[in-house]
C-alpha cells in the first residue's frame, strides 16, 4: 500500500506560452481533508483539471495510491478512483435526482450489465436495476435528498444541488474526492452545514478529500493541511495555522503595500 492516496510530482501545464501551473507537489494521506487555496487565477481549478484528466499535464506525474494515472482519459481516471464536483454546478439538469445518482453508480463492477442484456430485458437487467436503485436511495437518504428523488435536478435549491453533486461523485465509489469551491454562493449558516457534511463524508465513506475554497472560515474549520498556489506556483504548504499566518501568503491575498 502506497503511503499517499494522491501524490503529484512536479506537476505543470502550459497553454501556449502561459504556464498555468508548474511544479505542483501534493502529498495527500488517507482520510485527510486537504485544502488547495490561492487568489483568483492562481491555477487551482487547472490542477483539478489535470488530476481528473480534462487537461493533460505537460510536465510531471500523478500517482493515485501508487499507481500512475496521468495521461489517462477522464472516464478512466474516474474508474480508477477520482471523483469531482464542479465550481459551477454541473448536474444532469433534465434528469431526476435519483437518476443523477444512478448514472454515477452504473460503473461499479457489481452492476455490470451489457447493452444487449438491457435491450432484451434479460433477468440480469432487473436484478441490477433493483440493486442500483436500492443503493441510490440509501445514498440519497444520507444526504437528505430521498424525499426529492423524483424531482428534476434543476428544480432543487442551490444547497441541495451541491449536495447532490457530492452524492453523485460518491456514487462512483472513489478513493479521492475533489471538491471545487463547494461553499461558493452559500451563506454562513449553509457553509457551516456544508462543513458538517464534508466531515461526515470523510468519516462515513472512509474518504480522502481535496478541496478548493475561497471561504477561509471553511478552510480553517476543516482542512488539516493546505497548499497555497499563486501564479501557478506553490507559495506555501503546511498546516492551516502556519500557512494562514505566513506573511508571503497574506501579501499574495492582500497585495504588496
Amino acid at each position: 500500500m502506497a503511503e499517499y492516496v494522491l501524490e503529484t510530482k512536479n506537476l505543470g501545464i502550459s497553454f501556449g506560452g502561459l504556464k498555468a501551473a508548474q511544479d505542483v507537489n501534493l502529498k495527500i494521506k488517507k482520510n485527510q481533508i486537504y485544502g488547495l487555496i490561492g487568489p483568483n487565477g492562481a491555477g487551482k481549478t487547472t490542477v483539478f483539471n489535470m488530476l481528473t484528466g480534462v487537461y493533460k499535464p505537460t510536465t510531471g506525474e500523478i500517482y493515485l495510491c501508487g499507481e500512475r494515472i496521468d495521461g489517462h482519459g477522464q472516464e478512466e481516471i474516474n474508474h480508477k478512483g477520482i471523483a469531482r464536483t464542479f465550481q459551477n454546478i454541473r448536474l444532469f439538469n433534465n434528469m431526476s435526482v435519483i437518476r443523477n445518482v444512478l448514472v454515477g453508480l452504473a460503473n461499479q463492477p457489481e452492476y455490470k450489465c451489457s447493452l444487449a442484456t438491457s435491450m432484451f430485458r434479460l433477468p440480469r437487467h432487473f436484478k441490477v436495476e433493483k440493486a442500483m436503485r436500492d443503493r441510490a436511495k440509501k445514498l440519497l437518504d444520507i444526504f437528505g435528498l430521498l424525499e426529492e428523488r423524483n424531482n428534476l435536478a434543476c428544480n432543487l435549491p442551490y444547497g441541495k444541488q451541491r449536495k447532490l453533486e457530492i452524492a453523485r461523485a460518491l456514487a462512483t465509489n472513489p478513493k479521492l474526492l475533489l471538491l471545487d469551491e463547494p461553499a461558493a454562493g452559500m451563506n454562513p449558516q449553509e457553509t457551516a452545514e456544508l462543513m458538517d457534511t464534508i466531515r461526515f463524508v470523510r468519516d462515513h465513506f472512509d474518504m480522502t478529500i481535496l478541496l478548493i475554497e475561497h471561504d477561509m472560515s471553511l478552510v480553517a474549520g476543516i482542512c488539516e493541511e493546505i497548499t497555497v498556489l499563486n501564479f501557478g506556483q506553490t507559495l506555501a504548504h503546511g498546516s492551516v495555522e502556519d500557512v494562514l499566518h505566513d506573511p508571503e501568503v497574506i501579501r499574495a491575498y492582500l497585495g504588496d503595500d
Partner: protein
Amino acid sequence: MASRKNFKFKYYVSYLIVAVALILFTVLQLTGGLKRSTANLLAEVGYSVILAVSLNLVVGFLGELSLGHAGFMCIGAYLGTLFMKVLSGFIPSHLLCLIISMILGGLCAAFFGFIVGLPALRLKGDYLAIVTLAFGEIVRNLFKNLPWFGGAMGYTSKGYGSTLFIVAFVAVLVMLFVVQNLVRSKHGRAITAIRDNEIAARATGVNVTYYKLAVFVIAAFFAGVAGVIYANYTTPILYSFFSYNYSIEILVMVVLGSMGSITGSIVAASFLTCVNFYLKTNLTGDMAALKYLVYALILMVVVIFGNAPALRGFREKYNIKALFGKFFRKKPNPATERNDEGSWDRIPTKIKMDELLSVDVKSTESVQDPDKGEK
C-alpha cells in the same frame, strides 16, 4: 401500489397504440375490408415511425443533431433490395426472404452508422450536423452512379404487396421493445447524461465514446430496416428520394412529437405521414406545392407557438395536460406525481443552448447561475 400501476400503463402506451392498430388493420385486411390505398398508407406510416423513433434516439436522447438519417435509409433500401434478389434464389418464402434482408440491410446501415459515429466523437453541434448531412448526400450520389443499382432510372425491386404493412408494424413493435428497454436502463441514463452535460458525464465515469457510437449504430440499424421496408413498398427506388430534405422531414416528426418522447414520435410520424399522403394523392401538378405550403405553415406555427419565450404564459395556461386536467377533474395526487421513475415527458422539448447547437457554453452558464462565486 397505485402509483406503480399508473406508470406501468404509461410505459406500455406506445406498444398499445401500435398493437391495436396492427390487430385492427390485419383483421380488416383478412376480411377484405381494407382498401389498397389504406394498406399503402399504413406501410408508409410503419417505416416513418421506425425512422422517427430511431432518429429520436440520436437527437432527443443523445442530443446530437443528425441531418443524414435518410442516408442510412438509402443504404438499407438499396442493399436490402440487392439481398432480396440474391436470397430469392435460395429461399422460396418471400416473407422469410424479406425478414432476412431487413436484418442484413439494417446491419449494413449500422456499419455506416459506426463510421458516421466516429466523427461524432470529435465534432459537436452544427459541425456534426453538417457532417451527417454530407454523409447522406455522399451515399445518395454513390448509389446514383455506381453501375449496379440502376443509376438515375432507379433500382427495381419486386415489391411485397399489400400485406407489407403487417410486417412493417411487427418491425415497429420489435423496435419499440428494443429502444424502450434501452432508454429505460442504466445505458439509457448514461446516454441522457451525455446529452445533459457531457463534461459531468465524463467526470462521473460515463464512457462517452462507447455510448455515442452505440447510439449511432442502433439508430442507423433501424433506419436501414425502414429502408428495406420502403424498398418493398415503392419500386423502383430512386436516389432522389433520400435527399437531406427527407432527413429533415424525419427530424420534423421528432421535433413535433417532442424530443425524447417515443410515444410523441409515433404519433407525430403517423400524423404527418397521413397529412402527406392525403395531400400527395389529392393535389396534382403545380398545386402539389400546396402540400409543402401546408406543411411549412404547420411547422412554423407549431414551433413558434411551442417555443417563443414571449408566449410562455399562454402555453402554460393552455397546454394539453392542463386541458386534460380540467376535462377529467383529476385531483393532483402526490403519490402519482412522485412515481419512482422520473418520467421522460417531463424533459423539456428544448435542448439547451450549450448542449446542442452552440459552441458558446460559457456565456449561457454565467447567465443561468447568478449565485456562483466571483470567479
